[in-house]
């Protein structure tokens, strides 16, 4: 019997002397490598142009701010990989902060204020998931609607006023341990948990499957809707933790603390290689994306660039990231 698929086995191009060159070229084109290079150039530029950029204080500040954004971005990434989208993360973080802060101000024990805050995030994720899987509302619409509802609720509850929190133990995220800002420990924990779950467990494998080809997942006897419901809840869990970190860091219950956060997160995560079409994305890419976006913001402030420019640059970066994702396989013609 002839060997089945003989002509389709090893790529014939292996014999091509340029094979290796091309492989290296393709590797260089990998999104994360490009992003890492861009980050290196950004850091170099800022170091050369700013007296106080490459100082341990400033770098730790960048890391501290990256941590909050990263934790919520992990949730955003997981949801994107599973073929979903959650635009309500910024306002979700704000509500989580309002819940935690107000419970604390009302005298609820610290741990419970934080736990109930995190659970608020999970609940928001669950409602998003139910709207999307049961009522069959498009994720963009469902979570955009959720964004508005949470935003309005936040202003109603706080009557539009910010409230300062005096208790230092509430502001644990401002502290440092062994010289490392506390939020960085959250960053590491979130990264490790997500990396392991995504790459070594059946749930992670199925997340890629459900996002990559939901129809095929159904035919493989997966319960796609139940899986996605759980996925939004877990996304909400990360929103909850990030929300608690944020309110603790700011020491302020503020109804505008979630504003525009989803844009920065989306830019970071899309830069990191995730895709709106699902089934694609990585924790490492998201980490790079978050550090890049935070460093950029930090640098722009120090360069005394008007903040409007930050928005514009953010928009351009978002377009670049998505265009890179959509690039035709055979290159542009």
């Amino acid at each position, binding site marked *: *019997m002839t*060997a089945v698929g003989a002509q*389709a086995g090893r790529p014939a191009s292996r014999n091509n002397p340029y094979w290796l060159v091309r492989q290296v070229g393709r590797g260089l084109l990998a999104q994360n490598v490009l992003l890492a290079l861009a980050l290196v150039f950004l850091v170099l530029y800022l170091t050369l142009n700013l007296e106080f950029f490459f100082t341990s204080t400033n770098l730790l500040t960048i890391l501290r701010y990256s941590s909050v954004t990263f934790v919520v971005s992990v949730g955003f990434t997981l949801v994107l990989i599973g073929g979903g989208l959650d635009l309500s993360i910024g306002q979700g973080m704000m509500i989580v902060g309002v819940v935690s802060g107000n419970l604390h101000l009302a005298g609820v024990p610290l741990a419970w204020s934080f736990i109930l805050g995190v659970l608020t995030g999970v609940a928001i994720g669950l409602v998003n998931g139910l709207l999307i899987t049961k009522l069959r509302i498009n994720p963009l619409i469902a979570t955009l609607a959720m964004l508005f509802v949470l935003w309005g609720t936040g202003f109603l509850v706080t009557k539009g006023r910010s409230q300062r929190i005096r208790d230092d133990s509430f502001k644990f995220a401002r502290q440092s341990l062994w010289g490392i800002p506390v939020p960085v420990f959250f960053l590491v924990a979130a990264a490790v948990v997500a990396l392991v779950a995504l790459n070594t*467990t*059946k749930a992670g494998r199925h997340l890629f499957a459900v996002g*990559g*080809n939901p129809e095929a997942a159904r035919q493989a*006897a997966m319960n796609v809707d139940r899986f996605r419901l759980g996925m939004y809840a877990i996304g909400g869990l990360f929103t909850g933790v990030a929300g608690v970190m944020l309110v603790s860091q700011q020491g302020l219950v503020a109804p505008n603390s979630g504003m525009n956060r989803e844009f920065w997160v989306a830019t970071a995560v899309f830069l990191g290689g995730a895709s709106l079409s699902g089934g694609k994305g990585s924790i490492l890419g998201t980490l790079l994306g978050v550090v890049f976006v935070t460093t950029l913001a930090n640098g722009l402030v120090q360069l005394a660039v008007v903040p409007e420019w930050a928005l514009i640059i953010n928009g351009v970066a978002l377009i670049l990231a998505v265009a890179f994702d959509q690039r035709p396989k055979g290159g542009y013609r």
Partner: protein
Amino acid sequence: MAVSHPDGLSARPWVGETLLPRLPRLRKSSAADAPADHWQSADGSRPLLEIRGVSRSFGHVRALHEVDIDLREGEILGIVGDNGAGKSTLMKIIAGTVRPDAGHLTMNGEPVSVATALAARRLGIEMIYQDLALFDNLDVAANIFIGREHTRWLPLLLGFLEKRRMHKEAAELLKRLNIQIGSTRQPVGVLSGGQRQMVAIARAVAFEKNVKVLLMDEPSAALGATESETVLELIREIRSHGLSIVIISHRIPEVLSLADRVVVMKRGERVATLDAGSTTVEECVNQIVAGEAGAAA
């Protein structure tokens, strides 16, 4: 802790060596073997699968009307017919993804229900869809094992993947089926059409010990000549291990060379059942174009 496979390795005949002796290899049925539909073999056994009086409408469209078809053990049955003749609908009914309005199925003479895809799978019926249902973003081994991953330490979705074991078993499976794919670590998205088709076939036959019927909807539709020949070769290989195969195709010569018998469908009805060994392409085409239900054997 292997959660997903209580029977362990032996549950995967394609990985072990239990497969070959399962059934004697069947020759193509000779011309003397009358291609009747209520077929009884010399020893009086009945066909593996009997489809009786199956009808299905979608709104005003009558996709299937009182179709009777037999599938014999170890045979390749071709189904041909124009676009919209009802071929895919018939297969989906057997595979349990479409419910018939009327009619019933028997397997080995016993009435069976294929109300869901899972029920059909339990009976040993696997279907490869026209779009293959592969995950382009996952590698070859992940595709073969999807939904049936080997895991350890924690139950259900929390289980840790035994990646190395799955790659090893996937490679063994491909080797056993004589499928040559460079590495089981390649994402399926980069494979050629023929390789994708072969991964889909390998996945369909890989697991259940009791896969008896393989349904294939136009497996060579999108393939070039060489690639479709390799896929046909794989289908023959699978059949030689004792499975019954139903294959839909628009390429008449291909069906005649591959199948034992050919069913011609037209406007939701079976208009003819031809013996592949003795019929001709002209005859087939003639039945597709001018066949009348009830006129054939």
